[in-house]
């Protein structure tokens, strides 16, 4: 950076954000819809690069510019890492009064403001929910390692993510995993003197200290969520699907034992401890419940799902856990299979048809009450998978074996190669004509929070003294969570298959009856 001489402050060294119009992009299709706003897949006209455009919803006059957006922008501006989603720029659309162009004072932003992100093909939940798909152990290690690497980077930079969950972990067809949706994230101080809102993190992934009312907390909150995701990947379904906060705590205690002054000094002084403490002590059962996990996985999980946040493993320590350094080693992201699905635009109708078929199938298959369809990783499943279960009456036959490429890729990949940016990432596989047939549904959550509208971003910050209807946590029975229900789509790019999660919200709306 050149030193500016007097009168020559160098304010325009880089193009100013917001200086470009959204017209620089050609919207290809809507890929998400959340409380935050719509998300589009778009192509930059000049370069042909595929991006995700997240429209910032500005219709709440009282709130003004959404706090989630402003924080996300602020935080992503300072985070640059291959495992953190890249915010490329902010663009505006001129809005209705186009004749006022050039007038800086006008409402030139009224038309809309968009965040431009690198495009990612999937999210972890979407991938995991693909019927018949089973992650391999090297693949799980690969994802976990990237997740921890990205999170460690955030924590080193004093950023708490505060909403780690599968749908916020985006995955591209190069196998790269990136943390996304920093709308709840914030900077933290290392001395933990902060007075932070505890209405963060999607219920199933929320740590006990938040559920017990802590307002001083740190990076350990994210590590709990990571533990939940880790177990979910190994287990094939969410491990702590509480319907409301008391039930969530209860599920945690049932699995991890009840907290006391011995295993968690100070816990009895937590704000809501007396409301929620179990009537009698409960035993920690993690090692029993997950005894089928391999030893190193169990050790790591045990250290992540530690009740006492002070004792919970850090991202840094988790990265050097035995788990990642024992066979099978994490695979190279590049070696992971490229999952494809057809484009929503082409298959909308087909999907509706299939949906009906599935409903029929569901009714006919009541003998399979399992609400969750994910399959545990290959090593552990053996005969547990029910591939035939996923065949609806009129469905194309599903290949019960996912296209896993576990083969020669069991080598350590050290540091992932540099940020994969650049347009050349986008046409990675043969039949993607102009990106139109990329998987859309899977990505929804990461960008928009779409699948989980009840969580509303925004509300946690609604302000003291302000009524905050619909505040996170106020409603029991969040519509959160991975779907419960199998959709018989083809993965692996067969023609005509439909995306596994058609629309973010659908996962909940359509299959809302998952809790049995």
């Amino acid at each position, binding site marked *: 950076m050149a030193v500016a001489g007097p009168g020559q402050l160098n304010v325009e060294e880089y193009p100013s954000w917001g200086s470009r119009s959204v017209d620089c992009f050609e919207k290809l299709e809507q890929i998400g819809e959340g409380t935050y706003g719509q998300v589009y897949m778009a192509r930059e006209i000049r370069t042909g690069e595929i991006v995700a455009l997240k429209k910032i919803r500005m219709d709440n*006059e009282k709130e*003004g510019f959404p706090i989630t957006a402003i924080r996300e922008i602020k935080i992503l501006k300072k985070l640059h890492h291959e495992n953190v989603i890249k915010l490329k720029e902010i663009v505006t659309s001129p809005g209705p009064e186009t004749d006022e162009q050039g007038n800086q004072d006008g409402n030139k932003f009224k038309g809309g403001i968009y965040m431009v992100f690198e495009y990612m093909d999937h999210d972890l939940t979407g991938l995991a929910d693909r019927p018949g798909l089973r992650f391999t152990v090297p693949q799980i290690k690969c994802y976990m390692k990237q997740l921890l690497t990205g999170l460690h980077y955030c924590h080193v930079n004093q950023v708490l993510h505060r909403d780690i969950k599968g749908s916020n972990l985006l995955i591209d067809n190069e196998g790269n995993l990136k943390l996304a949706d920093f709308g709840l994230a914030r900077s933290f101080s290392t001395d933990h003197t*902060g007075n932070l809102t505890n209405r963060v993190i999607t219920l199933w992934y929320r740590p006990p200290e938040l559920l017990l009312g802590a307002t001083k907390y740190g990076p350990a909150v994210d590590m709990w969520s990571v533990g939940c995701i880790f177990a979910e990947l190994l287990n094939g379904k969410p491990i702590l699907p509480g319907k409301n906060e008391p039930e969530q705590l209860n599920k945690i205690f049932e699995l991890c034992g009840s907290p006391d002054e011995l295993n968690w000094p100070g816990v009895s002084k937590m704000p809501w401890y007396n409301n929620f403490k179990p009537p009698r002590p409960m035993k920690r059962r993690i090692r029993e419940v997950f005894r089928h996990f391999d030893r190193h996985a169990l050790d790591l999980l045990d250290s992540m799902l530690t009740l006492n946040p002070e004792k919970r493993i850090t991202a840094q320590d988790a990265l050097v856990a035995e788990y990642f350094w024992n066979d099978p080693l994490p695979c190279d992201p590049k070696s992971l299979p490229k999952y494809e699905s057809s484009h929503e635009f082409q298959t909308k109708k087909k999907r509706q048809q299939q949906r009906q078929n599935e409903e029929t199938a569901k009714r006919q298959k009541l003998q399979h009450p399992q609400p969750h369809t994910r399959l545990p990783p290959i090593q552990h499943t053996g005969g547990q998978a029910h591939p035939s279960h996923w065949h609806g009456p009129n469905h194309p036959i599903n290949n019960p074996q996912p296209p896993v490429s576990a083969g020669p890729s069991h080598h350590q990949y050290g540091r992932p190669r540099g940020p994969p940016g650049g347009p050349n990432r986008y046409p990675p596989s043969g039949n993607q004509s102009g990106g139109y047939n990329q998987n859309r549904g899977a990505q929804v959550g990461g960008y928009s929070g779409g699948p989980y509208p009840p969580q509303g971003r925004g509300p946690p910050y609604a302000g003291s003294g302000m009524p905050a209807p619909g505040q996170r946590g106020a409603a029991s029975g969040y519509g959160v969570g991975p779907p419960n229900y199998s959709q018989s789509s083809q993965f692996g790019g067969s023609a005509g298959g439909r995306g596994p999660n058609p629309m973010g919200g659908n996962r909940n709306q359509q299959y809302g009856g998952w809790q049995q």
Partner: protein
Amino acid sequence: MLTTVGYNHQSRQLEPSLAEASTPRVLTILSSVLEKLVARNDRLRDCLSAELDELSLGSARLGKSFNAFHGVRAPNISIPKYLERLYKFTDCSPSCFVVGYVYIDRLVHRHPDSLVISLNVHRLLVTSVMVASKMLDDEHYNNAFFARVGGVSNAELNRLELELLFLLDFGVAVSSRVFEFYCLHLEKEMMFNGIGQKIERAIIPSAVDDLTEISVDDTQSSSPPLKSLGL
């Protein structure tokens, strides 16, 4: 109420000294810094427009970046009273005022042809303090409330908020180092003011170039090195 959100850990030792009084001292210091700046810039603008008029250039050379913040006339309420009002009603932490000041200073550096003057200082303040409170405090009032406290309409404040964000190029992050730097800077100002003998130096706008020199400080040496520290 006076507690600050733990956003800037290193500066926390510093913060209580600024916040200990019932009206945090940061308000007093900030008021005096801004009053000085505005008084100087108002004079500068008058001189300049006179000079430019002579050159029949009109006031076209003055930057328009802050135009959205311009009122028709200067509000009656003084800067100290206005800051006090913001503090009293919005419950935001004293840190928000420091960070709001950082934003205004960044604006001035990013848009060196535009001046903070009596016509725009109030709107700049309410907007930057509000954005700061959105950044810093997990709990904060919404724009509608800030608008009522600040004496502008909700719609206008929303517009100003966007204007500020884009003028700042969304550079709203303030590291603890920068925060501390500004606190030290403000405390230094306070020391000068405590002695009370500091004579304000007149600015002689002999050349248009001087316009670009405008900063919150009188002396360039104490001007925060924004480009190197800020985002």
